[in-house]
């Protein structure tokens, strides 16, 4: 039952906020929002501590859909507890941070309610015992993402971004759902443990769902735009949790997926990782760098999951959650300090004024760059190790690592070092404590988590494979160091373009995919919808007109009988009488 508490506590928080939050103040919203998540974290923690809690724990709330294996059931598999811990823990910290970040916001009731609902839903994905529950959570996180991206409702860009996120996710969700139907038709159950090997087609469909949710190529276009939402939202949903749901799905289904699909996942992940890293290098918007970076890092996780390296993928997922969340919250701190200045060309020199933020951001950047002893180093090594026998994948992983170091250093240098790029930057002030505490906590995690796991102090619940060969570790570390050095050196003078101009321009535009999808896809869909609408309307109009014309014509015909001519009246009268007479006499009731 404790298992269900983890889901129900934040859900209760959301319900409470939704129903009664109108009468409460902003502080109460934050307190309820954060508190319910924290309690959920406590529940997970207690489960972890309990003897016997671990893979295999099962808890059913009751029957749900009239389908086999579709109860309201949670089950802890090998990745369940670490993920639940991460989700609730990071979410609680970010919720705490949000209290400070949204101190002057009027929509806190909506915000925290959506946040709580999100945590509940994410836990359903992580802990759901069958694909029906997982899918429910899947959809709900999509909904919360929409609500939270568009939190500042009066901003058209935010609303558009929210819609875009939802619609692109929908494509993946549709594939997911079709896959579900196929599984149901074939295996007659949705319980995750009893699926057995799935076909390539079904695996591909499920993979498509994961690709959309995790913002991999080609369904990644929504993530950079999602940065329109508040920064804590970006930290939580678009770095640590929701976007990792695709990876979670791949990990949990694991051996059930067809090998071809897994191979495709790995290849796709590698491609995405590399491409996104290049794009991140060229971005000038603070949050967009981080967004593309997320896409890239998740690509690495896909590589790990595709190779079947559950430990590596899980490790990197959690490590990435820590350092990316740190980076985002740090960015939020910067925005808070400079009055929402997001252009890195206009930032700079913040190290002196925002000491704590700088330190935390540095920790996160180290993680991103995968420099030891930051967590990113160990987790990336794990993935690289898994890819040892696949040269192309290995090369992609290593190259991505180098690029990540490069843009991480560039970002840090441009924002925190060097001269101030604008007045706002020069007048920055440090954030309040309520924001700094979570920031610091996550920064520490970014630094230390990796070492703890690699050193065996923290168990992830998955058997640890052989550790990285020293050559790989050394090589990776050197590459990272080189990348950092290069990035710092080239950026310190304020120059922000590290790529040759042609490549840089293309990269800035995300290599045109977004424009392509928007132009071709979105416009043609809109055209079809418009045509259908007009067609339907025209048809309806025509049928109404036709009905009206029919009535009018019929009436005109009838009107001819109202001629006012007495004689024709009489003629009809007599004719009718004759008819009746005929019927009567010939119809059998007449005289025999």
């Amino acid at each position, binding site marked *: 039952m404790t298992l269900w508490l983890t889901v129900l506590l934040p859900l209760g928080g959301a319900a409470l906020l939704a129903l009664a939050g109108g009468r409460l103040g902003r502080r109460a919203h934050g307190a309820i929002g954060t508190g319910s998540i924290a309690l959920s974290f406590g529940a997970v923690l207690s489960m972890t501590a309990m003897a016997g809690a671990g893979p295999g724990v099962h808890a059913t709330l009751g029957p749900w859909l009239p389908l086999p294996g579709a109860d309201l059931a949670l089950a802890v598999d090998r990745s369940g507890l670490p993920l639940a811990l991460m989700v609730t823990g990071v979410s609680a910290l970010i919720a705490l941070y949000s209290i400070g970040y949204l101190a002057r916001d009027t929509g806190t009731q909506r915000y925290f309610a959506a946040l709580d609902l999100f945590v509940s839903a994410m836990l359903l994905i992580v802990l759901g015992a069958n694909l029906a529950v997982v899918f429910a959570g899947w959809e709900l996180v999509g909904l919360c993402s929409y609500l939270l991206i568009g939190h500042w409702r009066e901003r058209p860009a935010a609303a558009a971004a929210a819609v875009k996120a939802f619609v692109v996710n929908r494509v993946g969700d549709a594939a997911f759902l079709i896959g579900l139907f196929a599984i149901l038709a074939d295996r007659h159950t949705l319980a995750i443990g009893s699926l057995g090997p799935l076909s390539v087609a079904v695996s591909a469909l499920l993979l498509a769902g994961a690709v959309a949710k995790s913002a991999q190529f080609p369904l990644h276009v929504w993530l950079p735009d999602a940065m329109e939402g508040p920064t804590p939202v970006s930290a939580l949903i678009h770095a640590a949790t929701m976007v990792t749901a695709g990876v979670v799905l791949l990990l949990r289904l694991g051996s059930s997926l067809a090998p071809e699909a897994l191979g495709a996942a790995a290849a796709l992940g590698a491609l995405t990782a590399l491409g996104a890293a290049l794009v991140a290098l060229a971005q000038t918007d603070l949050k967009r760098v981080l967004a593309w970076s997320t896409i890239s890092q998740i690509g690495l996780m896909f590589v790990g999951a595709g190779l079947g390296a559950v430990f590596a993928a899980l490790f990197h997922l959690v490590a990435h959650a820590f350092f990316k969340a740190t980076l985002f919250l740090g960015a939020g701190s910067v925005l808070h300090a400079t009055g929402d200045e997001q252009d890195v060309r206009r930032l700079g020199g913040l190290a002196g004024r925002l000491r704590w933020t700088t330190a935390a951001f540095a920790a996160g950047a180290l993680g991103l760059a995968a420099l030891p002893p930051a967590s990113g180093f160990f987790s990336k090594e794990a993935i690289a190790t898994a890819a040892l026998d696949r040269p192309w994948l290995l090369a992609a992983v290593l190259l991505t690592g180098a690029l990540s170091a490069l843009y991480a250093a560039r970002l840090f240098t441009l924002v925190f070092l060097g001269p101030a790029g604008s007045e706002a930057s020069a007048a920055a002030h440090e954030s309040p404590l309520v924001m700094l505490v979570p920031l610091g906590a996550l920064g520490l995690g970014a630094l230390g988590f990796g070492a703890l796991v690699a050193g065996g102090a923290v168990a992830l619940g998955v058997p640890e494979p052989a550790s990285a060969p020293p050559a790989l570790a050394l090589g990776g570390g050197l590459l990272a160091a080189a990348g950092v050095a290069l990035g710092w050196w080239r950026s310190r003078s304020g120059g922000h373009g590290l790529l040759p101009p042609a490549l840089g321009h293309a990269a800035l535009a995300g290599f045109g995919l977004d424009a392509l999808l928007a132009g071709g896809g979105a416009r043609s869909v809109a055209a079809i919808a418009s045509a259908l609408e007009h067609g339907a309307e025209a048809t309806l109009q025509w049928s109404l007109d036709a009905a009206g014309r029919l009535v009018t014509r019929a009436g005109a015909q009838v009107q001819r009988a109202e001629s006012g001519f007495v*004689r024709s009246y009489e003629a009809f009268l007599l004719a009718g009488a004759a008819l009746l007479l005929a019927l009567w006499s010939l119809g059998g009731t007449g005289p025999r």
Partner: protein
Amino acid sequence: MPTTAYLLLGALLFALGAAGVVMRANALSMLVSVELMLNAVNLTFVAAAKRFGELDGVIVAFFVIAVAAAEVAVGLAIVIDVARRHVSVDVDRASDLSG
């Protein structure tokens, strides 16, 4: 005299009246035709009374005559009134109730 003969005469008179009602446009002629039809009906009733040996048919004919009187009075009054408006007794012209 077989009853059929009277009935046939009645039918003939009725048909004549019917033809006149439709074919004449003069209001007065139409009224004459109507009277003819009424009389045809009377004849039928009377023949039936004779045939069945009951007086009821005769009584009906009697009342038909009474009602016919009333009808003629009112009908002629209407014709006169209409004729005042239209300066003619042509019913084809008096199609005010059209539409």
